[in-house]
């Protein structure tokens, strides 16, 4: 699966670019357009009223706007259920408040989103995945989590193997080892996610203003070495634009500022698609 991550400051045109890119890609294969922004706006872009998280827009284009709060609750809810089944009521009662707290903690939103993203990568049901992201910090998280998680998995596997060996030597009578196989499976999955994300194309959208350039420079510095920047999209270009522009970019495209909103199916879309074609090899 080929992944495109679309990022940039608020309101620069991430959703617009991600949307037209997906339409373009859907001529080449099956596309999933995933929104990792809490304030989803893909339906507005496609002018769709239909309810639902996962909607088929055309034969080879799907949009996915996950309900993040619910996804977090479900994720923790599953764990809660298993903990209740596997442990004594006293232990369950001790752990319960922690799980409940976690299920409502907004600090976990990006982590749940990364989980959703990972699941799509593992399922590999589509040829392309375009991600309409929220903020730079989020992309940084997505880009660095696989490596950091893998390091933890390795450590845990090491500890657990040691534990299992000691347990055997001490002839402790315990049942079949369930923990280690799960850890190993998780590691294997994360390795695939890491590999796919390392090959993802990152597209940065910005507006032609000095301030936005500084912002971009800072963001790209943070992301350097962690993610492959494949294109800069300068959006809403009108008349004069700042002359200073020295980003080491493989490709830079410019999109004019239109008088009306460039939504899916609008005539402005033709121009945007024509520009975007340049960054697709």
């Amino acid at each position, binding site marked *: 699966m080929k992944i495109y991550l679309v990022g940039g400051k608020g309101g620069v045109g991430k959703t617009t670019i991600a949307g037209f890119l997906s339409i373009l890609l859907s001529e080449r294969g099956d596309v999933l357009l995933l929104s990792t922004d809490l304030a989803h706006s893909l339906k507005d872009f496609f002018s769709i009223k239909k309810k639902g998280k996962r909607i088929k827009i055309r034969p080879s284009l799907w949009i996915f706007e996950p309900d993040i709060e619910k996804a977090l609750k479900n994720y923790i809810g599953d764990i809660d259920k*298993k903990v209740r089944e596997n442990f004594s009521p006293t*232990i369950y009662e001790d752990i319960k408040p*922690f799980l409940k707290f976690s299920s409502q903690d907004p600090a976990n939103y990006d982590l749940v989103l990364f989980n959703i993203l990972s699941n799509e990568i593992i399922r590999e049901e589509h040829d392309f995945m375009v991600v309409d992201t929220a903020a730079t910090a989020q992309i940084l998280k997505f880009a660095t989590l696989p490596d*950091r998680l893998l390091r933890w998995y390795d450590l*845990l596997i090491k500890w*657990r193997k040691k534990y299992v060996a*000691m347990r055997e*030597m001490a002839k*402790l009578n315990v049942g079949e080892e*369930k923990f280690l196989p799960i850890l190993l499976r998780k590691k294997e999955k994360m390795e695939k996610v890491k590999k796919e994300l390392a090959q993802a194309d990152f597209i940065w959208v910005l507006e032609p203003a000095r301030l936005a350039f500084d912002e971009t420079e800072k963001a790209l510095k943070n992301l350097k070495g962690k993610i492959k920047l494949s294109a800069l999209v300068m959006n809403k270009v009108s008349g004069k634009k700042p002359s200073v522009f020295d980003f080491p970019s493989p490709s830079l495209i410019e999109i004019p500022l239109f008088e009306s909103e460039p939504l899916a199916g609008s005539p402005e879309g033709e121009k945007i698609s024509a520009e975007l074609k340049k960054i697709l090899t």
Partner: protein
Amino acid sequence: MEKIKEWLKGFLKGAFEDTLFESLEKEATETQEMLLTLLFLNFAGLENPFSFYLFELLPYMEINEHFLRRMLFKEERLPVLFSRFEGWA
């Protein structure tokens, strides 16, 4: 005399093995407890995304009730931390 020797050998071996088992068991438990602590790091106020992902492993761990109690509640820091968040329980 031979019998006593045998007995003594058996006794020493047994005693040695017992301490060996005991220390192995202790180390095994400690390793396990380290894992558990890691799972609950988030709640000690340390932002740790791994605790979050490792929650999934929680149902498959062997949890010692006393250890859990000690870790979660004996030091009153955690409940105090929690009380700062509304509706945590």
